[in-house]
């Protein structure tokens, strides 16, 4: 497997500040505002969990006795599962709260829910919410670290970290790479977090979509905007495809799924425009035959899609570990 090449020149040789100076934040609400060495520190920390997760006994007692609540106000399968596995492999007691069962449906406000979760003395809360900024609102009201598992169209920081880890393990240093992100950038928290993460680490980022799906003033985020997919792919090291939500494909933003595939679907012919060894990524779940054709998605030489899922667990373990170091009284993490 190509991903056996572990670590990267940049991370391996990087010296991180001691103790909590390596990651001085109480929460992980977004990638925006993080320093490059803080991102690299989390990626370095994730490496040990990649190793553990490949063993037959996948257990560490690092979070023994801690309670992690996954509060998901928006449906999710893979991110919730990934966080649950991450917490359990480190020995934490993991509790999942689904929106469908929560009192939000009964009219309780988000703040009241936050106060309730806080009163249960969680040691970390992982939150997904459909509204931009909702996770920060909760974080301001609780005493424990909060991890953003996706808020509206704002940020999805662990996705960006797992993508960076995947790229780093395949390509080495992220700095200097050209990454093309294609799809519904306007509504995508994955795109925003990846833009912040990759540009902070020195990559050149291109975004590509019909202009109706590019957010206004996107070039202010230090990216190049394209509407022509061929131009956006030219010479790219990494091609990251975004999921197009079904409800946006029926005449609202896009006339039809087949037209979208015709103009913006990643096919083998199109991929040939990128570098010969260009890596293909997708945050999942994929719309096969719409934004990406199956033969590329399933090609282990080109596609890193399953690896992304694997790195997701490791990155989330690293985040849970690093953010709970203060409460676990780890030396240097006051």
């Amino acid at each position, binding site marked *: 497997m190509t991903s056996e090449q572990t670590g990267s020149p940049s991370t391996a040789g990087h010296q991180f500040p001691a103790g909590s100076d390596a990651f001085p934040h109480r929460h992980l609400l977004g990638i925006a505002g993080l320093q490059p060495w803080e991102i690299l520190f989390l990626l370095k920390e994730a490496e040990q969990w990649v190793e553990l997760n490949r063993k037959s006994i996948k257990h560490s007692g690092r979070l023994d006795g801690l309670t992690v609540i996954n509060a998901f106000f928006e449906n999710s399968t893979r991110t919730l599962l990934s966080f649950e596995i991450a917490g359990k492999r480190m020995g934490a007691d993991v509790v999942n709260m689904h929106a469908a069962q929560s009192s939000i449906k009964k009219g309780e406000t988000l703040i009241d829910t936050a106060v309730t979760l806080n009163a249960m003395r969680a040691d970390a809360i992982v939150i997904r919410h459909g*509204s931009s900024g*909702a996770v920060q609102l909760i974080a301001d009201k609780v005493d424990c670290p909060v991890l953003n598992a996706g808020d*509206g169209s704002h940020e999805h920081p662990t996705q960006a970290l797992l993508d960076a880890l995947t790229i780093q393990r395949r390509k080495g240093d992220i700095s200097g790479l050209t990454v093309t992100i294609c799809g519904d950038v306007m509504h995508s928290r994955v795109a925003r977090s990846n833009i912040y993460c990759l540009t902070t680490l020195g990559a050149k980022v291109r975004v590509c979509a019909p202009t109706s799906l590019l957010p206004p003033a996107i070039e202010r985020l230090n990216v190049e905007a394209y509407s022509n997919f061929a131009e956006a792919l030219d010479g790219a090291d990494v091609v990251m495809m975004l999921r197009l939500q079904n409800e946006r494909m029926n005449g609202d933003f896009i006339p039809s799924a087949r037209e979208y595939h015709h103009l913006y679907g990643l096919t083998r012919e199109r991929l040939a425009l990128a570098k010969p060894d260009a890596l293909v990524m997708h945050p999942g779940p994929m719309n096969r035959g719409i934004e990406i054709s199956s033969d590329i998605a399933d090609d282990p030489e080109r596609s890193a899609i399953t690896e992304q899922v694997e790195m997701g667990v490791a990155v989330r373990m690293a985040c849970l570990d690093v953010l709970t170091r203060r409460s676990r009284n780890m030396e240097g993490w006051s």
Partner: protein
Amino acid sequence: MKQVFTNAKVLVPGTKSPLPLNVATDGDLIARVSEEAPSGDNSIDCKGAILTPGIIDLAVFKIDKPAFHFGGITRAALMPDQAPVLDLPAMIKHSSSEGKPSLWSHPLAAATKGLKGTELAEIGLMKEAGARAVATGRNWIANSGVMLKLLHYCRSLDMPVIVHSEDSGLTADAVATAGETATRLGLSSAPASAEALSIARDIALVRESGAHIHFRQVTTAAGLDLIRVAKAEGLRVTCGITPAHLFLSDIAISDFRTFAKMSPPLRSEEDRQACLEAIKDGTIDVISSGHDPRGPEGKRLPFAEAETGMAGGETLLALSLNLVRDELIDLGRLFELLSTNPAKILGVNAGQIAEGYEADLILIDMEKPWQIDSRKMAASAGNTPFDKLPVQGRVRAIYKGGKAI
């Protein structure tokens, strides 16, 4: 009761700054403004403070007396967006008495039934019940046919129409102005041109109908350009703004600050500069508070779900005085914007210190420093986007119809 305000610096119409004059009142009205003090009357020593007309706030979403009295507001035009909507004569009659006698409320008649933008409300009957102007409420009327009928009808009744200016097709789900801030925060946004689009249509319909439209808030360079052209053409258009769009740009919503969520949303810095320019060149006729107090249940929510608006009554004067200190306009012009022009739009006998006008007066200590504090507001809620801002200028006393409040 007769009384005389002495030892005041009085802001009289047509002057740039206050003059040492005496103001005599008789009952509710101003009887005389003169250099020498008439003898024998009850005398109020103003101790050198500035005497101006009371502020006429056009328009507010709630009658909030403590906030208005703190801020020197003696009359407020109440938007029809109430529960229930002010779309019947009985509602207008009831609402007119709210606050009397220390504050006069001028309820604005809903333009359409339930403010739904489809059927005309009983504007004529509401006029007889005391409504002095018509308003489209928080939203614009999307159907141009309905809008033209409304304008024709209001023209025949000689009622000005106060409109909200945002093309609802563009602003449907938007909670911010399109730009870098909204994109970074992942908030749905609409281009600032949504305002100019709606103003352009309404100006065309003013030309058609001859009605008077007051654009309640014009907040973009393109919108203000259209107003300038329409005024030069001689059309009956006036426009207003609140301190939010004069002193804040959309950067204020960074960190998802819902206290800075406004309708229309805060704009780019370029547009904010254009608004200041329009204050300076006289394009903007009215500054109002947009007073819209919202408790935590409406504001302590994710940004997209939070309600819009700010508690602006008590900060209107202090913030507006910055325009004088920054030498954009003189104090005389400021009170045209705060009092005289709103009075003219409402057709009330107030808003200036002159013989025969209502003795709605405020005494202002111009230098008094204080700090805006959302936790200590006189308003029924503390949702100010100017929290912790140090300001200068405070109302020392307020008189409604000659009576101290």
